[in-house]
């Protein structure tokens, strides 16, 4: 069973009298353990698709099966719970809480977890995740005391604290220099390979897409191109930049 199955998804925005169709019939399967790049030019419907996939929004019509559950008609509270349990988000601008330690930031989503994790267990989990992303020694630092790459790693740890099977990264390297970008992308790769987490990178950067094993291109609200690719070897420098 696929993790995600989209069937004939439409999304239309109503701007006054005018209907603006943004997604026009998207059908898509995403299996567990995939590392996918969702690409598309600005205005292609890429962000809308990501919002739908991330359960932040509802399609106008169509079916969305996530983890064996049809969720396109779920209430906002239901979607909130789903996001909490099944989906992790990493944003371009990190979105860490200011003046709050890295550890507290990582623990934040636990506040909204229905089955309560005890304070101690939550802390343990957060510490383990921060160690996983290599920030074991920066746990008490506030975002302003961390570099961009470190902040993004805190954000990744935060997205994983509820152990979601699915991770969305919306332009995760957009605010990072190329070196830290590579580090962050490698981290995604490792999480994908070692932890088996399904990761969807939303990007328009071919360099980012290079790290994924499947690229989905969106254009004018439909899937233009969907193909698998061999993940480049760990030695990134040796691999040529992929040409279209």
């Amino acid at each position, binding site marked *: 069973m696929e993790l995600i199955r989209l069937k004939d998804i439409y999304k239309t925005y109503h701007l006054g009298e005018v209907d603006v169709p943004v997604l026009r019939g998207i059908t898509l399967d995403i299996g567990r353990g995939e590392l996918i790049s969702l690409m598309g030019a600005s205005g292609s419907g890429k962000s809308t698709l990501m919002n739908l996939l991330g359960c*932040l929004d509802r399609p106008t019509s169509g079916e969305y099966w996530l983890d064996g559950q049809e969720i396109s008609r779920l209430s906002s509270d239901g979607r909130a719970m789903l996001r909490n349990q099944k989906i992790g988000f990493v944003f371009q601008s990190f*979105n860490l809480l200011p003046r*709050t330690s890295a550890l507290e930031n990582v623990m934040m*989503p636990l*506040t909204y977890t229905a089955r309560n994790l005890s304070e101690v267990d939550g802390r343990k989990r957060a510490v383990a995740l921060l160690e996983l992303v290599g920030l074991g020694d920066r746990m008490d630092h506030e975002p302003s005391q961390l570099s961009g790459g470190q902040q993004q790693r805190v954000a990744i740890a935060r*997205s994983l604290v*509820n152990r979601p099977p699915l991770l969305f990264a919306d332009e995760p390297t957009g605010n990072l220099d190329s070196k830290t970008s590579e580090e962050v992308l490698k981290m995604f790769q490792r999480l994908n390979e070692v932890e088996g987490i399904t990761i969807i990178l939303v990007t328009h950067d071919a360099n980012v897409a290079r790290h994924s094993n499947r690229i989905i291109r969106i254009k004018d609200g439909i899937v233009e191109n969907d193909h698998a690719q061999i993940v480049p070897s760990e030695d990134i420098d040796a691999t040529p930049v992929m040409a279209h």
Partner: protein
Amino acid sequence: MHSIYRTLRTALHALRRNVMRSILTCLGIIIGVAAVITMMEIGQGSSAAIQGTISKMGANMLMVQPGESRTSGISLGSGTRITLTPGDCDAIREDCSAVKDAAPNVYARVQLVYGNKNWQPNQIYGTTPGYLEIGNWQISQGDNFTDQDVQSANLVCLVGQTLANDLFDGDSPVGKELRVRNVNMKVIGVLAPKGANMMGWDQDDVLMLPWTTAKFRLSGSSLGNVNQSAAAAASSLTQVNTLNNLYPSSSLAVLPAASPLKANQPQIVRFPSIDRIYVSARSAEEIPTAIRQITSVLRDRHRLTPKEESDFEVRDMTEFTKALTSTSTLMTNLLLCVALISLVVGGVGIMNIMLVSVTERTREIGLRMAVGARGRDILRQFLIEAILLCLFGGFAGIVFGRGSSILVNAFLHWPVSISIPAIIAAVFVSASTGILFGFYPAWKASRLDPIEALRYE
């Protein structure tokens, strides 16, 4: 429980992230609550002071008068019947829990002579030593008479300031002897001046003496029809009778029963009657209780069946009491207005800052929603932040309010008294301000669309 703890911690954390702003936001509530507390304490202090002054004027005083008597259906006015006895007075003092003290009163209207001057005092009170306290009299020179003086009807008296000035020309009257009718009476004390009362009477134009003396040595005439010598004769007899003062101890027939004229007079009773009883209630609030108790005690003692009307009347100083209650009601209402205004001002401040905070933290709200916060989680978080702000403000306000009323007391010497209801109200009011004015911003935050919120710049 756990989630409340977490929300509380999150809210505290959010407030700590911007300490200065949190304090400034609280300031409205702090000032408001502090003002209310200080005002209440000063108000209560001065209210107590006013109450003290009014009760000094005799607001706690009650008067028990005999009822009216009727001759052939014609009322002779209240106080014309003779029904009160010293025993009634003792019973009121001892059996009524709301009564602090009671003193009998016997009136007389006689001329006083000293040297070549004479004077007819406005009031001559025959009473017990306790009357001074009931009527709030002070002694400026000399001493009060004693229970022993009452017991043996000694010829001693206290004079008011007007009397002292008019008869003695500024000399100290203490130790001098006044001639009253045919007896010489020693002045043993001078009353401190009180001035005119509310009716414009000169209260200092007064002579006070033991009631037994007034009754049996001077005012045989209060019976109106007994001549001087008869009164003098009676005095020696009734002096003994003072100890035997149970209500209908009328067995002692002094007047010859043979006199048909006298026997027809209904007011001639052969026991030491008194004209009035002055009673002080324990407090102004207990006056109605005291009236009830006195009525029941006296009805019982006078053996009145439930159908019979009381043969006495109990009066209170309603005017004083009204003045007192209206003063404190006005004060309370004024303070309530102040409290309301400061509450609204503080609340608007809270709402303003919370709205700013919601706007400023739009992205945070978006993020929280993205990681699984429901609308009501966000609502609860912002509401708790607002309530916490208000409660902090409330507590700080209580501290500041207490502090400033202590300062006011220390430096301005205004009377203040701690007001527990004001403190409880302050806490309650500040919490409800938080809920009331925090709700709109919190609701607004909870209605945000996570996608829009995340994109907000």
